[in-house]
């Protein structure tokens, strides 16, 4: 349309667009397509019935049902817990609210499979410390709670996933214009009526969107089910995919079952993401206020102390207790010994950090993989986001569509996809190398990078660039001097959003690791499977320390940047 503009940036714009599309196609779209292809394409023909047959097999069908049961339980539990705590810390006179709020966010940083390990130590039917305590000292004849159950698995998932709802609802409640509630009050409604008729309906979109996120996460969640379910024969979709691929060493049947299950996951994810967008798009009320007063606080009166104690107990039970157990077990000389001073030492930690090759390799692998993936994904993400948010080029629509993909592809699907894509069928064989894990990490974390970078780019108003053009700067000079410096905080955020979770990654790594390419998550999991409980716990403890240190660094940075 415009002559000079297209002339000056013709080549460049097209190159950037092409590169962006290429990255997303190679890293995400191609593996997903291969899964769909393998699921439905048998012996050179489309075979939908075959895929249905596989789903109908008792074991696969059971896994589907289990995924659904666990995800439903987890979602309902998390939504109730998250909404309740969010309401408690934003709308009542609960004592020490700020402290409580920061504590409720802690589970976000903790890897749920490490939590699951801790709960296994505490509540496994025979050996769990709590169950044993009740049997030995209080005369119980059997375990008081069996963690190897649907309820057990869902409960543990709730502990680590409820912050998704908590954060969303807290945000909505805090931003909500207090006069919306005050006008109900002046209309004659009491605080409980207001909560029921005004507050909850207004934040319902936030509650639902958080709930759907949890649903998506739980359906595709590997760690907790792997640690707590498999012992009792409870498989969900990701664990069954892992089991099949792992057991059979990549046989055709296993791959096919895997791809069919993965397809189910992809479809569920697409439905959930669609529903979430729909809710956030149309149903989101404009409830953000102008004047800000402190919102009304519900006086809890007699319930104030009991509720505070309840919150503290919840924090102690779900956060402190499992963490302490991990560190204590990690310090034991042998699993099964009592926690007496004589039996505890730091030897295990020394051993895994300096002497034991498996764990040393795992830490090295996770750090280098996480760092490399974070750097690559950060730069790729900023480029792709720039095209999507800022550039006006033909063909952008394709990229916008591709850019949604990373958000809706669960980890185990990515893992299976990269196996199909990079095991030699297409000329490149990365199987059993760290490179295949790297590719999978990039695909898995692209969504984080796109989110952080687009948010940062949207803050850079077009007029800032136009102002620099008017000052005589060319397109490239404007990019260098104005755009890049302004999105740097977004890029940094993207880096940490990828680096930290990748340190504890399990779902993808477990499907792709080879003996020399274990990551921290894989090492913790496999050591535990092999009965090396204390070593596994010690490594989990180290992982927790690294994650908490990393999180403090981020908090420090974001506070300084004033974000």
């Amino acid at each position: 349309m415009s002559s000079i503009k297209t002339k000056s940036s013709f080549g460049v714009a097209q190159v950037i667009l092409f590169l962006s599309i290429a990255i997303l196609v190679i890293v995400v779209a191609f593996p997903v397509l291969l899964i769909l292809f393998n699921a439905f394409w048998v012996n050179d023909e489309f075979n939908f019935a075959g895929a249905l047959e596989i789903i109908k097999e008792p074991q696969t069908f059971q896994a589907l049902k289990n995924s659904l049961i666990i995800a439903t339980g987890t979602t309902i539990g998390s939504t109730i817990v998250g909404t309740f705590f969010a309401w408690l810390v934003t709308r009542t006179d609960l004592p020490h609210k700020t402290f409580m709020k920061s504590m409720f966010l802690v589970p976000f940083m903790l890897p749920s499979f490490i939590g699951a390990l801790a709960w296994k130590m505490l509540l496994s039917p025979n050996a769990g410390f709590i169950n044993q305590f009740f049997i030995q000292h209080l005369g119980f004849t059997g375990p008081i709670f069996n963690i190897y159950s649907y309820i057990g698995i869902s409960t543990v998932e709730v502990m680590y996933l409820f912050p998704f709802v908590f954060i969303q609802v807290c945000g909505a409640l805090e931003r909500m214009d207090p006069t919306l509630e005050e006008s109900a009050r002046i209309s004659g409604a009491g605080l409980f009526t207001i909560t029921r008729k005004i507050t909850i309906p207004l934040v319902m979109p936030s509650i639902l969107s958080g709930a759907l996120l949890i649903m998506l996460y739980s359906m595709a969640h590997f760690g907790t089910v792997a640690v707590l379910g498999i012992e009792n024969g409870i498989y969900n979709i990701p664990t069954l995919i892992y089991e099949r691929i792992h057991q059979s060493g990549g046989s055709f049947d296993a791959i096919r079952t895997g791809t069919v299950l993965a397809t189910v996951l992809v479809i569920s994810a697409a439905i959930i993401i669609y529903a979430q967008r729909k809710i956030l798009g149309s149903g989101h009320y404009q409830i953000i206020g102008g004047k800000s007063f402190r919102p009304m606080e519900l006086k809890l009166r007699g319930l104030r102390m009991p509720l505070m104690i309840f919150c503290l107990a919840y924090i102690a039970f779900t956060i402190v207790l499992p963490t302490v157990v991990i560190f204590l077990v990690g310090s034991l000389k042998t699993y099964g010994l009592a926690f007496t001073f004589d039996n505890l030492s730091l030897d295990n930690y020394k051993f895994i950090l300096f002497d034991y090759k498996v764990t040393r390799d795992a830490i090295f692998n996770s750090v280098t993989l996480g760092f490399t993936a974070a750097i690559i994904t950060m730069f790729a993400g900023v480029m792709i986001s720039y095209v999507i948010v800022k550039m006006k080029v033909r063909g952008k629509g394709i990229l916008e569509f591709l850019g949604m993909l990373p958000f809706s592809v669960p980890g185990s699907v990515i893992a299976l996809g990269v196996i199909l894509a990079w095991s030699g069928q297409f000329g490149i064989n990365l199987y059993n190398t760290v490179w295949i894990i790297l590719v999978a990490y990039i695909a898995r974390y692209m969504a984080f990078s796109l989110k952080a970078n687009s948010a940062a780019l949207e803050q850079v108003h077009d007029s800032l660039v136009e102002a620099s053009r008017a000052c005589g700067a060319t397109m490239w000079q404007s990019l260098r001097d104005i755009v890049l410096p302004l999105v740097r905080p977004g890029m940094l955020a993207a880096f940490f959003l990828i680096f930290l979770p990748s340190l504890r990654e399990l779902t993808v790594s477990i499907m792709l690791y080879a003996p020399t390419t274990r990551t921290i998550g894989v090492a913790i999991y496999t050591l535990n499977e092999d009965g090396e409980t204390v070593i596994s716990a010690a490594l989990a403890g180290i992982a927790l320390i690294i994650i908490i240190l990393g999180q403090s660094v981020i908090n420090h940075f974001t506070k300084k940047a004033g974000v």
Partner: protein
Amino acid sequence: MSYVRLVNVTKRFGDVTAVNSLNFEIGKGECFSMLGPSGCGKTTTLRMVAGFEDLSDGEVWVGDRLLSSPKKNHYLPPEKRNFGMVFQAFAVWPHLSVYENVAFPLRIRKLPDSEIDQRTKEALKATNLLSAANESPDFLSGGGKQRVALARALAINPDVMLLDEPLSSLDPHLREEMRFEIKELQQKYGFSIIYVTHDQSEAMALSDRILVMKLGVVQQIDTPLNIYNHPANQFVFSFIGLSNFLKAIPQDGHVILPDQSEAVPMTLKPPDSLRDAALLSLASRPSEIDFTHMEDPAGLHGIVSRKAFLGEIIDYQIKVGDQVLRVQKGRRDPGPEPGAVCAIHFLRPFWYKEK
């Protein structure tokens, strides 16, 4: 007859006294405005009347009902006070239809369905919203949303209506229209209004009486015309319209300019009570200064440093020594050109002591 009564109402936030010992009474059916710059405590006062803020000291009464009194440990929560209230940011509930928004206070009171329907419709009719009854308020303009808020406040037939800057989120032309609507509704239903605003012309146009407030302290309570004609102090003068302050030093019953660049006419005399002040301000409104001929003994000489045609008015900037005055004349009034020496005459000079 006084209906709403505030006695020594005080609000402290930590060490800061936001509202300092406020006393006033409002008659039944009166429109009473609280006017002041942001942070002067007017909104805090309104929120204390509504019951959203606790009082640190004092009492709030409506009729013979005591609403708040920290001394007597008495506090009636907002939902029991039976007020109508309208907020700046509309505060209509987006998840309820226009009709349900207005019916809400009636449903809370558990009135029979037929009465809810009848009173809701009446309130909607009074605010010209009947046709939009089943719509979501999200689809209404700012003015429409504020009408819903008004209708909701009207539905319970309150004796007192609290309005917290209800028009400042609206476009200027809509603001004027809504102002008249509020006034009409008041005349029709006869409720008292406590109106909070920082816009002096809004307060002037609506109110029977105005309270001017600064830093939590009452400056003046009076009718709009009296506030305009007899502002109690320099703050009130400056807050209710464009204003000039010309610094002058008293000398032998007259004044001289601090830089003595021009002779101040002998006719411009400060009141006797201010003769001992070290420095005075001669306060004037730009519209209350006339140009006069150079020989006029009542004329103060200056130079036109700027003249701007603004349509209906012509805006002059006059330099008197090193001080600057603003003069506004109608577009038909003759006036000097930029750069010209001129003489000005103050129609209504006010004198204040400079601190």
